[in-house]
């Protein structure tokens, strides 16, 4: 059984500040990893938010949803429509996206939460697949189907025109009162939302509400006989995580005003499950970590080609180099899915609690190796193994 790996509330302020510093300083410390370019950092922040929200449902409440990509999609489409109709300011777009994704999540959650376990998972999957299939075909007037919904110069953009910023010569970029939301400013915009989202997640984890969610995951039967009506709690968690997904979807469009239907596909829902578990479901920081690793491997591993491999292994003798390159070539470039698949298997087999659990284990091992008891650096009394 996986147990909830938890830190105590003690030290949250430090933990959060550290997190904030790490996020805001990403453009610096990611340089040696080759990941310090705006688009990837934006993706880290956005998918981090998505996973953090998903974790509130899956990690805390224990409901495995296979349909959260639908809310991401709803958020994206809402945001782009807000750009088209209202204007390129991201704030109304985000507000509307969160609201609409929340409403959508309420409807789907209300129906799906009548069931639990795999039946719940399949219900959410069914709703998401219906949304995706329709968005790709019949709903093309709303979603622009395969090509994806974009902002055009001919769109009304009422607010922009009122502000006298309606005529733009060149591409339409979202801007926050004149500041363009692409490149690094775009990243920092997402990062601020990530920090807000993370802060709320901290509050939920430590609140009585969060405790109720954990209790639902732990023993729903006991909850019923403890005078708690579990379904509204689960539904609230579902809607909150749907709103996070809507926010993430809106941010995807703030940094890149195009909403494609593929982001609603079931594989996209599966991706956020993987992110959460990879980092550690039910932990505060795990989902962010998982999101970062998956997006990193998607963007960096897939970019390797034979040429880059030869550059990397160029120091080896010719014969060996050729062999190493052809073996390594199986795992990168067009083979990066293989790496991803192996990574999942290894993590689930050996670290079911995710990377955060791995960290705890190392920490515990180090503590044991140290001066023995009483050194003050022992595993937290609450950290479960």
């Amino acid at each position, binding site marked *: 059984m996986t147990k909830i790996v938890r830190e105590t509330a003690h030290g949250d302020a430090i933990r959060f500040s550290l997190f904030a510093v790490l996020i805001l300083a990403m*453009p*610096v410390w990611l*340089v040696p990893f*080759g990941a*310090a*370019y*705006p*688009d*990837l950092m934006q*993706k880290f922040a956005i998918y981090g938010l998505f996973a953090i929200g998903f974790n509130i449902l899956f990690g805390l409440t224990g409901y495995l949803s296979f349909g959260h990509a639908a809310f991401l999609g709803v958020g994206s489409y809402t945001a782009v429509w807000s750009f088209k109709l209202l204007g390129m300011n991201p704030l109304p777009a985000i507000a509307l996206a969160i609201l609409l994704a929340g409403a959508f999540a309420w409807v789907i959650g209300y129906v799906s939460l009548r069931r639990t376990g795999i039946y719940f998972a399949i219900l959410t999957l069914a709703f998401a697949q219906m949304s995706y*299939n329709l968005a*790709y*075909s*019949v709903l*093309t007037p709303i979603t*622009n*189907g*395969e*090509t*994806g919904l*974009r902002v055009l*110069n001919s769109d009304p953009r009422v607010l922009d025109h009122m502000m006298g*910023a309606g005529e733009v*010569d*060149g*591409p339409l*970029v979202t*801007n926050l009162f*004149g*500041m*363009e939301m*692409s*490149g*690094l*400013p775009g990243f*920092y915009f997402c990062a601020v939302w990530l920090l807000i989202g993370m802060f709320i997640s901290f509050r939920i984890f430590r609140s009585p509400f969060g405790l109720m969610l954990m209790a639902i995951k732990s023993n729903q039967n006991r909850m019923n006989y403890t005078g708690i009506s579990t379904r509204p709690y689960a539904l609230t968690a579902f809607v909150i995580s749907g709103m996070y997904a809507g926010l993430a979807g809106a941010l*995807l469009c703030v940094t*890149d005003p*195009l909403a*494609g239907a*593929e*982001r609603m596909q079931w594989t996209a829902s599966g991706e956020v499950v993987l992110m959460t578990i990879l980092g550690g479901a039910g932990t505060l920081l795990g989902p962010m970590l998982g999101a970062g690793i998956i997006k990193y491997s*998607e*963007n960096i591993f*897939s*970019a390797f*080609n034979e*040429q880059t491999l030869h550059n990397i292994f160029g120091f080896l003798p010719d014969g060996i180099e050729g062999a190493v390159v052809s073996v390594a070539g199986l795992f990168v*470039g*067009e083979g*990066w*899915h293989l790496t991803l698949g192996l990574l999942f298997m290894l993590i689930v087999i050996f670290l079911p609690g995710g990377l955060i659990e791995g960290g705890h284990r190392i920490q515990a091992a180090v503590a044991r190796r140290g001066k023995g008891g009483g050194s003050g650096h022992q595993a937290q009394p609450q950290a479960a193994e």
Partner: protein
Amino acid sequence: MVDFLNPSRRGVLKGGAAVGAGLAMPTIFSSKAWAADYLNKPTGDTVTFGFNVPQTGPYADEGADELRAYQLAVKHLNGEGDGGMLNTMNPTVLTGNGVLGKKVAFVTGDTQTKSDAARASAKRMIEKDGALMITGGSSSGVAIAVQSLCQEAGVIFMAGLTHSNDTTGKDKRRNGFRHFFNAYMSGAALAPVLKDEYGNDRKAYHLTADYTWGWTQEESIKNSTEALGWETVNAVRTPLGAGDFSQYITPVLNSDADVLILNHYGKDMVNSLTQAVQFGLRDKQVNGKDFAVVVPLYSRLMAQGAGENVKGILGTTNWHWSLQDEGSKAFVKSFGEEYGFPPSQAAHTCYVQAILYADACERAGTFAPCGVVEALEGFEFDGMGNGPTLYRAADHQCFKKVLVVKGNENPTSQFDILEVVQEVPAEQVTYDPSIFGGELGECNNGA
């Protein structure tokens, strides 16, 4: 520091650099942007191309072939190998010593045949790797999405395989160029051949992939066949990736139709064609005529998947390795020597796009996108397969011969699947650029 507050400032990196400087960013962000008069201006002795092809997903094989062609093109541009179509292109200023004195380097990315992933990958190549030009792709959705990204970022996009009218129609962009043909041209080229083969009194039944490309093709083919006097009995939309098409094929049997037109590509085409043949459609007689199946857009790679079922079935294709002009022969030879098999049409179009871009830079004397755009617009050339070709200025669409092909009845090898029935001259497929609407807009240098 106030630079990025000015809304007229464009460019992904410029704004980034402003904040970057404020935070004492590493030079990676600032050095390029400040010195440049256009985005990603090469400062060293290399110039970077970005090859954005599907490496995973259903079009991975096509993507792999595209990548092979690009690598070959880079070799030829840098003066390695036998030079391929560099020797046959006319006119050209390329000499095989790189472009504008710089050696060509390249980076690759995976589009996954998804607009989101393709844009993320293209952004990486632009933002991180400093690519000046993005090229490749195997679907229209991706092409349109990446084309508009390149427009906004301020680099050149040389489309790979994309067949929708929209790419150079309502979604055309000044920074984007397409060498591949489109659905309208397929219809225009196919119609006369259909008339010769099947007469002008036919009833057509369309099965159409239910997404944008499928719809544009259905419309184009409908228009050109109805102009022949054909009647369209029905047009049914099928879900993308339906797998089993039997429930869409059986109604064809009971309809009055005597021609089935499959507006499918990729796996959908392989499956629907295989299954249609199994249902005996090709052996059927309706209204006293032999029933016919037509696949308006053929790809040799995909046709391989349908095996013997393609025999005798008409369609169009952009290029085929069996063409006997000097350019095609040279390309097939150098590709075959390098990889041991002939190139696909996707490989051809991608190779040509890379060469054309390099040539345009050389002629313009700059890598600045606006200069390249100017050099490519209205450019006429020959010797790249498909005969004399025009890159039309009004919509950045290439006009050249379109091949009408037929599934080979007696293939001599596994690559000999299609035979060319007719090379339809460019005049016959040329159309008025205004019919599809859209605006090219201004070119964008990205800085």
